[in-house]
């Protein structure tokens, strides 16, 4: 039966070895991302956020547990299947930019399409993706000319241009000021809602999380997901106060 989740992690664990020492990075993590929602995971430096994203995006295999994409177990998938998935279905926003400094952003964002489409059509879609994230004016610019905020947005366009069903972004709000951060987070949220895709991001800064539909905190290898209830918002009640005939 279909779970409806775009991505699901079930009891996923992973550890790293440094010499004879094993460090558990992820312990029994379970998490689902549904279409139309943006899920943000917060953690301190070294908490394993990036490892979690790599495992979720199929770039690294867990030691135990199951990672499924649209109910398909990535562990049981052929190499070709996995490569196709990574190329077409999962948009991983790379923060490092293009390999070549000469590339204009219109072409950089068009690159992921070139295997399937000719340059003219790929460029047209690239232009649409750049416009969608709000940096149409960066089409002719080179990576080194962009601000941190523009780089983030171009990276998101680069991941989005192939119209993936899951968008994965590691720390999209790094080095951004409050207003740029609001813009990027608002974009990720509206992208999830309007394009009906799952968005999974990590953030080192809690204020970035307020736009996410669901949040979690990673520490000591475990993921803590608070309940979505907001009791504090509703606890203003009208009641008579001692010494007052009619509270006014």
């Amino acid at each position, binding site marked *: 039966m279909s779970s409806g989740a775009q991505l699901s992690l079930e009891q996923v664990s992973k550890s790293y070895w440094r010499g004879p020492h094993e460090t558990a990075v992820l312990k029994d993590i379970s998490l689902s991302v549904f279409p139309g929602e943006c899920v943000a995971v917060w953690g301190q430096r070294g908490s394993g956020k990036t490892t979690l994203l790599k495992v979720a995006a199929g770039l690294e295999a867990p030691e135990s547990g199951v990672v499924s994409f649209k109910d398909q177990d990535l562990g049981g998938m052929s190499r070709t299947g996995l490569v196709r998935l990574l190329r077409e279905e999962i948009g991983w926003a790379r923060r490092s930019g293009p390999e070549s400094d000469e590339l204009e952003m219109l072409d950089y964002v068009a690159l992921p399409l070139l295997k399937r489409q000719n340059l003219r059509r790929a460029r047209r879609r690239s232009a649409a993706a750049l416009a969608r994230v709000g940096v149409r004016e960066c089409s002719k610019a080179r990576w080194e000319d962009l601000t941190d905020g523009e780089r983030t947005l171009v990276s998101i366009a680069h991941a989005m241009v192939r119209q993936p069903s899951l968008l994965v972004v590691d720390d999209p709000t790094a080095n951004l000021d409050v207003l740029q951060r609001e813009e990027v987070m608002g974009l990720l949220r509206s992208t999830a809602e309007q394009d009906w895709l799952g968005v999974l991001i990590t953030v080192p800064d809690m204020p970035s999380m307020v736009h996410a*539909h669901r949040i979690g905190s990673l520490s000591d290898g475990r993921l803590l997901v*608070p309940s979505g209830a907001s009791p504090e918002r509703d606890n203003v009640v009208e009641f008579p106060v001692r010494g007052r005939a009619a509270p006014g």
Partner: protein
Amino acid sequence: MSAKNAVLGLVIERPGYGYDLARRLQERFGSSGFAPTGVYSALDQLSSEALVRSAGSRADATTERAAPRTIYEATPKGVDHFEEWMLGGSSLAPVRDELYMKIALSKPHNLARLIELARSQEEDCLARLASLREPAARPGGGPRAWSDVAVLLVRDAEIKQLQARVEWLQRARAVMGKLNGAQIRAVARGDRSA
């Protein structure tokens, strides 16, 4: 810090009656821990100092209450007082935290319970963060009005405090866990050698 100046500021922004002001105080300063009843004592105090006054009353058709509600507005003296407060210095809040005191005064046998307490506070912080989430996507782009940015900055300050709290709780929990584990192992060794 009492709710007095916050309530005065809200009345200056827009006159309102007690319940309305309590609701607005909660919306704007929810996690400052002002009790909803604090609004009424603040209004009493502000009235006695002639910083706010009644601007008439309004019967509420939506409830069956007999008494009409008093609408409060700021007096010119109240506006002056608020301006003065705005220009004055702001003190740093004292850190007076129960968990800090418990840790400072605890004994090794309290560690297990303190770890639990730290964990549950961490959950509370995250639940509060979850409650601060934006209800809807904001239509993107464009510069924001200062009033929006001001709300954003204050919310950031509040969330950053939660974050600092969670970071400290996680570190404290890790260290206490390590020491507690060592202590349990030492006791087990003692048992064996006995």
